[in-house]
């Protein structure tokens, strides 16, 4: 993951759309998840880092003295800082847009994905909010089709926006429904 990332890392969010060149995707009006999603990812990273940090510092210090413990914890913190930067780029890469007959979702920095999902193919929508997302007042919306590979998930929407999108999607799905 780290290789190649710095090369086009300078303008990741804009890069994602400008890389599409003068194509139709760039002309769409992309909506983004709430900036608070950055906070959610940071909190999740911190929650994962703390136990690792404790173990690294503890075992390092117990095995070969305080200095090694210090070095181990610095290494863990540095790793977390790099991950944090990468997570930030990934948060900025999310985008979605509601067209007349389909929803478009884009995601990813290294492996970029752009999905076009017609409303008529929708089976159901679900809105989920994990503990971290809830703490930041956010929720994820996911639109399911009969194809397992369809990838229509939008994380980090403000809860009101998530509810609006859910209602919008289910109304559109209802009116444009088709079979399998």
């Amino acid at each position: 993951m780290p290789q190649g990332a710095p090369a086009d890392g300078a303008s990741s969010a804009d890069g994602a759309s400008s890389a599409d060149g003068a194509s139709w995707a760039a002309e769409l009006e992309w909506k983004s998840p709430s900036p608070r999603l950055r906070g959610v990812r940071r909190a999740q990273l911190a929650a994962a880092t703390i136990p690792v940090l404790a173990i690294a510092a503890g075992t390092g210090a117990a095995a070969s003295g305080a200095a090694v413990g210090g070095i181990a914890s610095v290494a863990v913190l540095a790793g977390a800082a790099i991950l944090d930067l990468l997570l930030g780029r990934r948060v900025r890469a999310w985008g979605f847009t509601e067209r007349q007959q389909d929803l478009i979702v884009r995601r990813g920095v290294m492996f970029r994905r752009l999905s076009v999902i017609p409303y008529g193919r929708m089976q159901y929508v679900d809105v989920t909010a994990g503990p971290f997302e809830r703490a930041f007042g956010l929720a994820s919306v996911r639109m399911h089709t009969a194809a397992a590979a369809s990838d229509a998930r939008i994380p980090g929407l403000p809860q009101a926006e998530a509810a609006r999108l859910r209602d919008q999607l289910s109304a559109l799905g209802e009116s444009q429904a088709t079979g399998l």
Partner: protein
Amino acid sequence: MTSIGDNPPARPPAPTPPNAGAGTSALAGGWERLHPLSAVVRAGRGTLALLVVMAVSAVSRNGSGTQDLVRLGLVAVVLLVGLVSWLVTRWRVSDGVLQVDTGLLRRSSLRYPLTQIQAIDVVRPGLARVLGMAELRLRMAGAKGSSGRLAYLSSVSAEQLRARLLAMAHGLDEHEPAPPERPLYQVDPKRLIASLLISGPAMALELAIVVLVLVALIKPGAAGAVLASGATAFLGVSSALWQRFNGEYRLVVAEAPDGLRVRAGLIETSAETIPRGRVQALRLVQPLTWRPFGWCRIEVDLAGRATGGRRNRAAKRAGRALLPVGTLAQAQALIERVMPDVPTERRRPPARARWKAPLRFRHLSYGLNDRYAVTVSGRLRVVTDWVPLGKVQSVRRTEGPLQRRIGLASVHLDTAGRMIFAVARDRDRSEADGLLASLPGACRAARAGETGIGTGRRRF
């Protein structure tokens, strides 16, 4: 399941019991029971295994009398459980829904709307064939293996019920006789055996056996250890091969107005009916080792999980074969029957795709017309996938880091199938963008055209 097997609890009778089936064991309200010997067949495999164990121990006089008693007790318990399950299970067809009630302590009532059937299979395991019984399986579109089973019915009533359910699924009168069918081809058993012997997994297995024999000749002591270390892989591959052989032996494909009939099987036979318009994707596979003989294989993908309790993962991944092995001419004739007017023109990816996919590049291409998309890929084997545009659920463009460096992108066409996915790999980015812009509209148009044909009903 130790309590007494009472009659099923009284249920309010259906408002309009059609009572059409000429079942031997009809209950009130149009309900019918399964075949009374179902318990025997269900217990069959375990019982046979136990009998073999008992015979062996009786011959070698190792087992004591109490051990035999315990085994007999086990058989009795299995039979009793089967008997209770038979007593509490009943089914009926009413208002276009197949209803199956079962369970002693936890009653469950399952309903299968016939208009949503993806396929109907009649399966006969070896023991059931001896006793003239068959299992009916309904494949539904649900995501989580929601397939209906009626195990077991008598062979005759299973056939009748299949015809009746299919007629109802197509919106016809339920007493409409099954339409005549026209056999398309039969697979030659000799060719099937030969093709399996030179298929990838079998070649690996044969190589392993040769190595094992060599080891045993050179150093007899080591052979046991080698065998023990590879035993699970060995068993897995051979059982997958056996299941493929058993499932595709004497495979016959027949065409009837209500769909394709696929019959096959050596010991366990199955007769599958795939109604028209249910095919989500077709795949043509040309393995490297088959190419000198000009053989190929065609697999079909439907919505919903593949049924079949004991098929293992390798067998499942192989997919349902419509043509286990055949010539390219046979394959083309079959594709023409299932998907008329598939695109013939193929577009190659740009030459720089060679850097990203050196092995695949030779085969990569895709084609498109207003009804179907076709993609070709594969490293050693050549894999061609056809997808009806009317079945496409969503369109995706993916770009990996390497692809982005050289301006390539892949376009995926997602369908409700489980195994076959059409991907136009490593296209020029602007071409991928063009596809992404035009495909949703093309799929909508194809979908609209599709509903116009046939019975005029909403098709799944």
